[in-house]
């Protein structure tokens, strides 16, 4: 049996609800778009239903400790097609077992989720570390990113708590939405980039007059802090893989 859903969290949770209603035996959860129908496997299209999803989530909350609720959510944010199926199987396993079953690292879905969540948390952590704001002329601190996973929902609080007295925008270019903090709340925004293509950085003309100076000072600092006699490129690359360099002010040529 194959269940098809639209990739939303509501859809995924609804799928779990429907499975328990029907108990169709071994079932695989797939994204509607990817599915290639064939003559041998039966499929079922999940229709999103907020109430059903809500009931499943509440049920999971009863069965899972806080850290596993987060593991579940993070795995979902990975947006990896196989992760969706593991989440689906995991939820079924949890409902069918006694409380505490998430500690069973001998179970494939438990291990899979803890791996997905680890990758997502790592990406979250990297974004918190590697984001570099630029200050615009009107006092806004702006940055754009294109993370491997959908981590904006996870990093929002960190930036809100930390930069409570400055306005900021973090824009996910890949997923085409961003967060804007207006000194009170964080809201989701979308931006129409006029030139159509990716234009991750505002033009220098729009920058605060001191922006350039602090960027230069930071690059200077980065160079000074290095100890040449200890050079270790391999370790450096392990910590800051090349794909993240585009975020880093200190890695841009002068």
């Amino acid at each position: 049996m194959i269940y098809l859903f639209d990739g939303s969290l509501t859809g995924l949770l609804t799928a779990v609800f429907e499975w328990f209603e029907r108990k169709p035996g071994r079932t695989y959860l797939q994204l509607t778009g990817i599915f290639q129908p064939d003559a041998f496997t039966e499929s079922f299209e999940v229709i999103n239903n907020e109430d059903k999803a809500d009931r499943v989530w509440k049920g999971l909350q009863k069965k899972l400790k806080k850290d596993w609720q987060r593991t579940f959510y993070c795995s979902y944010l990975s947006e990896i097609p196989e992760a969706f199926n593991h989440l689906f199987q995991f939820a079924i396993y949890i409902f069918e077992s006694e409380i505490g079953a998430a500690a069973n690292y001998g179970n494939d879905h438990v291990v899979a989720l803890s791996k997905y969540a680890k990758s997502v948390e790592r990406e979250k952590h990297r974004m918190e570390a590697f984001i570099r704001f630029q200050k615009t002329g009107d006092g806004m601190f702006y940055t754009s990113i294109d993370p491997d996973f959908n981590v904006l929902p996870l990093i929002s609080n960190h930036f809100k708590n930390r930069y409570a007295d400055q306005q900021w925008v973090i824009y996910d270019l890949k997923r085409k939405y961003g967060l804007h903090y207006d000194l009170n709340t964080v809201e989701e925004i979308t931006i129409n980039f006029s030139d159509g293509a990716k234009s991750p950085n505002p033009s220098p003309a729009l920058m605060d007059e001191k922006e350039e100076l602090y960027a230069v000072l930071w690059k200077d600092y980065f160079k000074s802090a290095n100890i040449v006699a200890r050079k270790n490129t391999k370790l450096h690359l392990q910590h800051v893989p090349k794909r993240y360099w585009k975020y880093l002010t200190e890695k841009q040529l002068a």
Partner: protein
Amino acid sequence: MSDRIREKLNILADAAKYDVSCSSSGGTRKNDNKGIGDSHSSGICHTYTEDGRCVSLLKILLTNHCIYDCLFCVSRKSNDIKRAAFTVDEVVDLTMNFYRRNYIEGLFLSSGIFKNADFTMERLLLVCKKLRLEQRYNGYIHLKTIPGASEELIKEAGLYADRMSINLEMPTEAGLKLLAPEKSHADVIKPLEFVQQNIVQFAEDKKLIKHVPKFVPAGQSTQMVIGATPESDKDIMYTANAFYKNFSLKRVYYSGYVPISNDSRMPILGTQPPLLRENRLYQTDWLMRFYGFKVQEILNDANPNLDVDIDPKLSWAIRNMQHFPVDINKADYKMILRIPGIGVMSAKKIVQARKFGKLRIDQLKKIGVAYNRAKHFITCADSPYQIKDYQGTQIKAFIMADSQSKYLKTDNNQLILF
């Protein structure tokens, strides 16, 4: 204007970089005054230098003018280098602007000693006060305690700093006397002890009174320079152990000496810093702090120095084969932690998972156990039957053959933790 500040930053960041501590962890400050900044309990590395070290703090000296002449230090009086000094406001401005752009977790402020200890400490204190009170800055501050500064100043500084540190510099008194005759470990111990007593006192008060201000909430740390003087690894780690115990230090840092002069009392310019040794010392430090090892088990009169070719956890295991093999499905957590190839995370997962049934090899691999290493020391549900009882030395040979490229290169200076 901008040229001058650039020059100062270059000089004073360059002079500060030999202090290897860059941790921004242990902070508990929240941004509850709608100001700016908070601290992340586990710290954040915002970037890494090309030598692979974490950069999380703006690490600078207030000035590199110094009245002392410690031989191991670039800022020593007799060294012919460019000198500079920041104003208090310059440090505040740099910190705030770097912080707002998410370059850093905070400030690590140290200084050469100009005029005298109190004069220097007062300036450092002023920076902290301006940041906290005028800028409403709640980011991380690591402040150097200046040896010889008055207790009033040190105590006041403790109200604004998250972490304070003061460096032992050399692992033994004899080593220190050799390179810095004007200094002694006693100068370090006195303020460490004073700050520690205050940390305890504030914690006591907090139990009785609700609104006690924070006092050095991220605790104290120290640093030893490794390889400038001829101490053994045992000397180094016994000193570290004593300081962890006596002053509840959060961290001891080991900084492989990077030659900066041609004085005959130390390794000369061009000598490679002892990076592998430094790595082994950190591994030992971790074994003491997170793996339940006593320092005497790892280093003692029979083994005064750490093995170069294998890590200290493996060394201990092959010297103590009487404890192995360990049954993964029965042994207690403490013993599982001691198995080479199993880290803290895997050990925790093992004790949770085995409640659901006996663990097999494939499950251990999925959990994250380095099985090729661990297999010599464990049995699990489907361990192959072993007829031969291998000696520790044979096992060492197997493991080294297995991980030739990964562990044996002497220029390998990565911090690989088990």
